Structure formats: structure tokens, C-alpha cells
């Protein structure tokens, strides 16, 4: 069994291995085990359904971080009929942890930006594990402003543990880069679709995360901070990360309920890493459907809706205002 499988995937993997074994045995020994195999297949399907229908936040987080999960470039290549990666922020550098470019799905042109994780350790070092520096956010902004110039919709694919916390990132204004992007994305005059495809790590995610529709793949998370960090700070115990993952309400389902996320994009049973093509198809469908919806509004309507979407986020009690008059403190007027 490969190392990359998660704890809760074990019973499934075991069943699948047994099925393979029986099949081989049947072939080699010429014994009919069809019924046995069929029974196991059914069981495997049932267990899968069970396991994946009641995943805990912590398990979803593990899936979201799965090393074999499709990356941004995987999705792009599967979705687009053509894609040309474009580089550089025209200021300082080219960040390989946050990529971008122009492409098309059928006759629909798109500007795409997204965090890029690596496929191997070496690749991951090259990609800085999908943790962008300021120049990554600035490249994304440059490409998104260009999209606006050419009236081209924007797709942002989020998959990052967070913005890189390092000396150079601080020197070049990580905070400024993220803040600027949010401000500009709020007013870009083209449709913007945001999809969390893996990890939605805090400000690093939000730096390309303002748009008309925010969607999440089924087994992804989006969080104000990593559960590990949260546990270390609030419980003073990193092993409480599971508890933190629960408390932070970071799954797609939680965030749909909280009104932060607009839509959940289903993944194939077992997770996106089990079926790249199928996942990409689902993603593509969600993109095109939502794009059509957004494009049914005028630009000013679209921008208004985008603003309102973020404007209404937040929960609090609003007490009725009481006017206090200096002379007559008792006179109370409800507004």
C-alpha cells in the first residue's frame, strides 16, 4: 500500500487489494470467484459511501492536503482547450508558487491565476509548497488587470497553506500585496470566479480570493488559520489540531452554511486525487454554469452584487440605537 494513503482510506484500500488478489487468483487457478468478487465490490462501494459521507473536518483537511491531489496546472490542462502561462510581476520576480496565464474553454477566453504546489519534494521546493511571495500576488494582479482590459473573465484557483512567512516576503510587502489584491479584485469590471481546490490557507488564499462566486471542492478547507497553529495558540497544544479543525468551521459545508461560500463542487467518490478527469469535468461545468449566470448581469449589477456579497459577511447583534440627549437623558427614542 503506498504511503500516500490516509488513515481512513485504509479499509477501502484493503478491500480493493483483496478484489485484485481474487481476480488474479481466479485467472491463475481458473476457479470461478465472480460472486465472491461481486460481493466484495459491493462491500467496497458501501464502505466508501459510508466513509466519505461522514468525514470529519480533520479528515477533510487531510484530503485537501493530499499529496496526490490535482494541482492548479493539472486542472488547467484538463479544463482548457489552450493555455499559455504568463510570468512575472514586472517589478521584481516570477513566483512559481502562484502561477497565471490566459487560456480558453471552447470559445470562452479566461485569465487564470492559482497557487501551484509541487508533485514531488523537489518540485515542491521549487514551488515553495504553494506559499506565495508578494511578487506572486503582484503577478496575479497584473494578469487580472490585463483580463479587465480585454474584458476576459477571471478564474482563481486557491490551493495554499498560506502566504509565505519569511524575511524576504516581509521586506517586499506581503501585507501590502495581499491587501491591494483584495481591493482591486473588488472592483475589477470582469466576472471573477474563485474556487478552492485544496487548501484555503488564510490571507494567502484571500489574496486571490475576492470575486463574484466563491466555490469549494467537496474535500477542501478554507480557514482563518491552520488548525495546528490555532491549537498551539489557543489550546497551547498542537495535538489539539483535530479539535481546532472542528471549532474553526473550515469545511465547504460549514462555510456554505455560514454564507461565505456560494457552492460546493462535488468530487468523485474517494476524492479528486482518485479521478483527475472526472474532477476536472465537474470543475469545468461549475465554472461555465456560474460564468453564464454572472454574465447575465450588467457590469454595474455584477459589481454591486460582488460588493454586497462581502459587505454582508459577519455576525453580530445590532442593538437599536438609543438617542441620548444631554439635557434629557431619560428621553429615549428608538430609531
Amino acid at each position, binding site marked *: 500500500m503506498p504511503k500516500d494513503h490516509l488513515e481512513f482510506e485504509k479499509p477501502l484500500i484493503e478491500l480493493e487489494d483483496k478484489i485484485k488478489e481474487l481476480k488474479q487468483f481466479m485467472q491463475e487457478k481458473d476457479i470461478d470467484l465472480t460472486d465472491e468478487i461481486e460481493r466484495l465490490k459491493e462491500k467496497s462501494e458501501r464502505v466508501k459511501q459510508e466513509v466519505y459521507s461522514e468525514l470529519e473536518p480533520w479528515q477533510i483537511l487531510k484530503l485537501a492536503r493530499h499529496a496526490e491531489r490535482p494541482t492548479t496546472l493539472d486542472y488547467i490542462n484538463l479544463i482548457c482547450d489552450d493555455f499559455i502561462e504568463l510570468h512575472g510581476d514586472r517589478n521584481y520576480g516570477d513566483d512559481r508558487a502562484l502561477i497565471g496565464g490566459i487560456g480558453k474553454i471552447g470559445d470562452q477566453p479566461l485569465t487564470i491565476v492559482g497557487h501551484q504546489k509541487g508533485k514531488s519534494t523537489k518540485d515542491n521546493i521549487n514551488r515553495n509548497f504553494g506559499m506565495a511571495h508578494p511578487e506572486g500576488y503582484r503577478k496575479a494582479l497584473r494578469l487580472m488587470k490585463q483580463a479587465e482590459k480585454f474584458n476576459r473573465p477571471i478564474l482563481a484557483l486557491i490551493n495554499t497553506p498560506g502566504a509565505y512567512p*519569511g524575511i524576504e516576503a516581509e521586506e517586499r510587502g506581503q501585507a501590502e500585496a495581499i491587501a491591494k489584491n483584495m481591493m482591486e479584485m473588488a472592483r475589477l469590471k470582469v466576472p471573477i470566479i474563485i474556487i478552492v481546490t485544496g487548501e484555503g490557507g488564510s490571507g494567502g488564499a484571500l489574496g486571490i480570493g475576492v470575486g463574484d462566486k466563491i466555490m469549494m471542492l467537496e474535500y477542501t478547507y478554507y480557514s482563518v488559520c491552520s488548525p495546528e*497553529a490555532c491549537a498551539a495558540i489557543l489550546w497551547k497544544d498542537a495535538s489539539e489540531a483535530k479539535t481546532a479543525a472542528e471549532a474553526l*468551521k473550515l469545511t465547504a459545508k460549514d462555510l456554505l452554511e455560514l454564507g461565505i461560500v456560494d457552492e460546493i463542487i462535488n468530487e468523485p467518490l474517494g476524492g479528486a486525487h482518485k479521478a483527475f478527469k472526472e474532477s476536472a469535468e465537474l470543475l469545468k461545468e461549475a465554472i461555465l454554469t456560474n460564468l453564464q449566470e454572472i454574465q447575465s448581469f450588467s457590469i454595474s449589477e455584477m459589481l454591486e452584487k460582488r460588493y454586497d456579497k462581502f459587505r454582508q*459577511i459577519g455576525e453580530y447583534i*445590532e*442593538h437599536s440605537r438609543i438617542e441620548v440627549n444631554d439635557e434629557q437623558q431619560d428621553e429615549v427614542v428608538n430609531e
Partner: protein
Amino acid sequence: MFKDWFGSKSKYVTVKRQKEKSKEKKKKKGKGKGKGKITDELWTKCKNCGEIIFNKKLAQNLKVCLECEYHFRLNSQERLNLLIDEDSFTEFGEELETVNPLEFPKYESKLKKYQEKTGLDEAVVTGEGQIGGHRVAIAVIDANFLMGSMNSVVGEKVTRVIETALNEELPLIIISGGGGGARMYEGMLSLMQMAKTSAALAKLDDAGQLFISVLTDPTYGGISASFASLGDIIIAEKEAKIGFAGPRVIKQTINKDLPSGFQTSEFQLEHGMVDKVVGRKEMKDVLVRILDIHSLRGEVNA
């Protein structure tokens, strides 16, 4: 709530507010989490130079060490005292009460603790007032309240003060001093306040209005990565610590010691992130001069 101290005509207060708000009491209760903590009711030892300073003298000197010019942190009320013309402040947004939307363990008790400790409802005070005779909309993040972290109410209050600036065509000033970033207890609701406030600032910018962001010690995380970095003009108070990621996180990540002077106001100036580093004593004067220049429109093209 600063009505008594400022003698201003605060028009709105909430019904529920019944807490004690004595200034003296707060000082006593102050745990002194920040640097330069108050060690005694009468005397304070400077964290920087070790000088023992008579509190009254320290206050008279705007909480700047008389020996080494170390800038002690100010709370929101002291900050407003420093900047706003006398009798000109009206507070906004007192009608908002923080809830526990995620039912996060222990959040309510934390809130209560800080509300009692600081006499504040939340980590920001917003309102309008005059600075050198210029009417402005203003928000002050208070680092004493849960590290000045951003949650639903802080985001909402900041957004509303931006909207007031927009609707009443006032210059906007936000004094940031929050080391807590986006508040974990409210999860993504906190994080999204970064987007919400930034979007509101985009509208203010589109309307051609002035936003001066003043960064004080400490400005980090969700505060620094949203409105604090979006000022037309960004002023940093001398020697403040300003950054995105906290020094501990960076140290852990890179597994190296951080260079001295890292993430100070002066570091940010050198790296092009702030327009000006200003000592506390000159802060009001600088703001007034900026407001003066912006109040002039001169000749416009025919």
C-alpha cells in the same frame, strides 16, 4: 463611551452598557502585556532604557520615555486624546455586540475578560471628530482588546466608518495597532472582514477621497494585510512593529534568527511600504498638514 473623558456629544450609546469605565481602574487592571509595562501606579520602568519615570510626567510627555524617547503603547482613548481637537469627537457604532457565531469554546469568557479589562466593547473605536479643524471620520484599533484582532464587529465598524467617510465626503483616518490579525474565534467570518473592509476602501478610492492609514505598535496579520496597507498615505509611528507574519512564525519557518530592526517602522520605510515615520509628538501636526494640503483644490482645469 468616551463621552466623559472627551466631553463630546456622543449621540448613541447601547442599552446594555453598564460596565464600570473608570480610567484609574483600567490602569490598575492592565496586565501590561505589551512592552514597557506599567509596573506601579505611580512609576513606570522603561522597557527600553530602564529609566524609572513618574507616570504623570510620562503621560504629560504623551507616553514617550523622557530619557530615550521610547514610545509606550497608547490605548484607543489616549490616541484620540492625542489627535482629536478638544470637544469634537462623536463615537459611532456602539450598537453592535459581538456574538459567538461558531460557538467557539471559551470565546464568551475571553470577550468578557477583555471587556472588563479595557472598558471597551470591542477592539476598535470609531467616530468622527476634528483634527486641526478638519472634520474627519476616524477608527482606532485598540491593541489591548484581544490583541486588536479583527472579527465581525471590528470589520463591520471599520466598514461603517469608511461608508460614513464616503457618504459625508470626509477624509478617513484609521489608526491601526492590532497584533492579532483576524480573530480565530470567529473563523472565516473574521478573515472575510479583510475583504469586506478592502472592498469598502475601493469605493472610497473610486470616489477620489483621502484615506490616511496610521500604523502604531503592533500592526500585523489581518489588519496589516487589509485596510492598514491601503492608505493613500501611510504613516508609521516611530519604532512600531509592523509586518504580515509575526516574528515567531517567521523564526519557526526559516529556522534562523531575525535581523535586528526587522519589521520596525524604519524597516518598513526603507522597504518602501510607508510614506513617513513620525514621532508621537509630531503626529498630529503631520496629519493636520496633510489634511490642509488635501483640503486645497487650487485651480482646476477650465
